[in-house]
């Protein structure tokens, strides 16, 4: 008898819970008031950051982000628009930073005469940045800040 009552109560609770969930519109910072089974309007495209000023890397191994627009840049078997400024021989005219020497290395650690094919497609790692307000803030702390906190007197 107790068991039956418990089952009935559980079923009622689940039913009530589902009903409430379905009726309630979930409001989240990212989705807005759009119901979960619906697709909201796409946010407007944001402009690309185009200052050409180097951005600080968040950690040493981070591929540097592209501080300029790359609209219409062709990177394929035929050509690589990025390299027409960033290739070693082109940096004199362009004053752009040279592609890092690590990109000349094949997977056996041998340095080749030019960019290794496995590092040819720039945008696999390097990406341009949008001018936008992130919907969720980021509390990432870089290693220098972390170390200085750990150091005696770091908080001063």
């Amino acid at each position: 008898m107790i068991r039956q009552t418990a089952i009935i109560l559980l079923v009622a609770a689940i039913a009530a819970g589902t009903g409430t969930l379905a009726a309630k519109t979930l409001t989240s910072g990212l989705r807005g008031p759009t119901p979960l089974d619906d697709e909201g309007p796409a946010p407007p495209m944001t402009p690309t950051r185009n200052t050409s000023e180097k951005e600080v890397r968040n950690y040493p191994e981070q591929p540097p982000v592209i501080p300029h627009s790359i609209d219409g840049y062709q990177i394929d078997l035929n050509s690589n628009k990025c390299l027409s400024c960033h290739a070693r021989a082109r940096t004199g005219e362009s004053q752009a930073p040279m592609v890092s020497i690590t990109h000349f290395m094949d997977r056996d650690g041998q340095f080749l005469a030019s960019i290794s094919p496995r590092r040819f497609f720039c945008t696999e790692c390097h990406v341009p940045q949008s001018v936008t307000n992130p919907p969720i803030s980021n509390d990432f702390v870089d290693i220098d800040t972390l170390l200085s906190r750990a150091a005696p007197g770091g908080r001063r």
Partner: protein
Amino acid sequence: MNTADPKAERPGLVKRAWLFAVELWAVLIGPSAVFALGALVLGGFTAGVIFWGGFNTALEMTNTETFCTSCHEMRDNVFAELKSTVHFTNRSGVRASCPDCHVPHNWTDKIARKMQASKEVWGHLFGFIDTREKFVDKRLELALHEWARFKANDSLECRNCHSAQSMDITKQSPRAAVAHERFLFTGEKTCIDCHKGIAHRLPDMRGIPGWQ
């Protein structure tokens, strides 16, 4: 039927054409005995206007995006590629259509280019680039022609719209401003030297100056 067989008496076609030409010439070099001088002058003037207008109208008809893309070679390859670029759609809605870049605006140069283009009609008739593969194989050669033309006339077709004098480099990105100041304003380079592949996909760029 007392006449003889006409075939026996009629001279050959060449002979008859020659006789006709001689007779026509005799008429043409003689003074008009029927028409007034005014009628001839005015008639000639009107005919001239009609002929010239007709010629230019026909010429301009071949100078439109619609005409260019009426061949599948253009429509499926270069025009399809143009559609994703800034010269086709952009914030201000100004579009550069095919002849804006590929046909000189100056009359004599335009006629010269149009005569060259008869080769392209030949190419169309005999299917030089009638498949995507053939087009891709020929892309470098075709691109080299266009680059050479732009280089030779100091990128005139670019400059028909983009003038260095009206260029406000403070409105440009720092990168563009520096490059234009250093290479364009000094005349060291012309537009096409740096801006290859802005309207169509690039061919294999190995060996092209400034490319890897």
